[in-house]
């Protein structure tokens, strides 16, 4: 009876935004997105890369249904479950890590599932803690567990590893890959870190400055697990040569 629940797992997600304009408090208009169209391959990781402030976050928010003031169409199953990892962890400070996860988790999510997930991201000792007791790295892990606990049809990640030191960010990236590979999910991640993008992406989408649209889509065929530092460097140099604008200074 619940076949709609995972309709998104195999369904295509098609995003077409003709125009998205922010209207400021002083009624200044700022067009963030114009003529953008993007297709997400099922169970693949799409990484959006573009200059700061180009409208990547706006795009994610629009896809998540947090902002419906745009023209265009987002084609996704109405019952699609979302997982969203924000730039800040955005855990409820007055709920323990366990309560934060249980509040949003999928209907059939069992205690066993919760334990497995918590162990996978390394917060199994922290389930009874309140978010304020956690370091930023640990809070990010908890937020990652929460995003996966919804058993999402679409996983949205908004620069989930910014303002972490490089070692912690690296650990979290491989953690994300582990959890994601265990349960392949259609995912969209936003970043302005090119190496992170190359490391994680199946589809690397390069975005134009504001008003943003898709500049190019690069498909990276090598499985994420097999990409090493040398390979990432080579891909990076190749892309930097072809898209100097997007990789300038990075």
């Amino acid at each position, binding site marked *: 009876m619940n076949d709609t629940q995972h309709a998104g797992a195999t369904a295509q997600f098609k995003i077409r935004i003709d125009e998205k304009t922010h209207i400021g408090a002083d009624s200044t208009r700022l067009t963030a997105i114009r003529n953008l169209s993007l297709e997400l391959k099922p169970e693949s990781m799409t990484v959006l890369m573009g200059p700061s402030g180009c409208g990547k976050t706006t795009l994610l*928010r629009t896809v*998540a*249904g*947090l902002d419906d003031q745009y023209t265009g169409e987002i084609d996704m199953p109405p019952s699609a*479950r*979302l997982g*969203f990892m*924000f730039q*800040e962890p*955005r855990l*409820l*400070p*007055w*709920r323990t890590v366990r309560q934060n996860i249980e*509040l*949003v988790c999928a209907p059939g999510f069992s205690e066993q599932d919760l334990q497995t997930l918590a162990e996978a991201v390394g917060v199994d000792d922290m389930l009874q803690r*309140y978010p*304020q*007791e*956690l*370091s930023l790295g640990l809070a990010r892990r908890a937020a990652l567990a929460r995003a996966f606990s*919804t058993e999402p049809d679409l996983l*949205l990640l908004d620069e989930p590893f910014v303002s972490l030191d490089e070692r912690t960010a690296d650990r979290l990236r491989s953690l994300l890959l582990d959890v994601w590979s265990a349960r392949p999910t259609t995912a969209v991640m936003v970043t302005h870190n090119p190496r992170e993008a190359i490391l994680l992406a199946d589809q690397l989408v390069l975005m134009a400055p504001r008003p943003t649209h898709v500049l190019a889509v690069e498909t990276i065929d090598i499985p994420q697990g097999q990409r090493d530092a040398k390979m990432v460097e080579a891909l990076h140099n190749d892309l930097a040569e072809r898209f100097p604008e997007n990789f300038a200074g990075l």
Partner: protein
Amino acid sequence: MSVSIAEPDPRRGAWYLRGPWIAILSVIGFLLVWFVAAHIAQSRLLPGPVEVIAYIYEEALHGDLLFQLGITLWRVVAAFVVAMVIGSVVGLIMGEMPAVNRVLDPWLIVLLNLPALVIIILAYVWFGLNEAAAIGAVALNKIPNVIVTLREGARSLDPGLDEMARAYRLSPWSKFRNVVLPQLQPYFATASRTGLSLIWKIVLVVELLGRPNGVGFELHLNFQLFNVTAILGYTLAFVAIMLAIEYLLVQPLERHSTRWRNRPV
């Protein structure tokens, strides 16, 4: 020469810094000053603490002190509940909807500045000397304060957590209970704190002007009899009740609902 003064941690300081000792000592000090002053004055108009406490004891056993306290307490509770419910709903709506806020804001300012006495007199004149008019008048005096506090609370809601709740498709009830209410908790606490103390003072005025019972009525009666012992006795007894509510009900409740706070990393 530089002197560094370390702030002592009250939890680790000497025994007298821990627990309620200082508060108890301070109360004893007050009673002592009162006792000495009454002893020096030797007047019927300034009875000492011993006489007042004896009066309370006597009236509680043989008089109707407990009945009068109960009546007043019931009016305080009724007015408090009415004011908190109406004030919270209106305050939240005004905080969330700027259009409603613009319409109701002038009313709010008028109500905030209307003297309690005016509201009480008008309520009695228009609705008669009855219980509903009394409680309504008290509540109406408190409602604008609750509105202002809760409106501030609604405005300070974290938009990030709101987005989180919407992205994860929380039901409206779940969002209210898990995301909104905990953010409003400090505002509710402030509103009820200032509410209880304000309300009980106004309840006494309402009772004095138009009720045949309650602490306010007794104060009025004993004022006419110039019985200062009774006036102080009733006041002290009711203050004791309000203190008990503060320490045994409000503070433990607040500690419980803010237990997630102030835990270091």
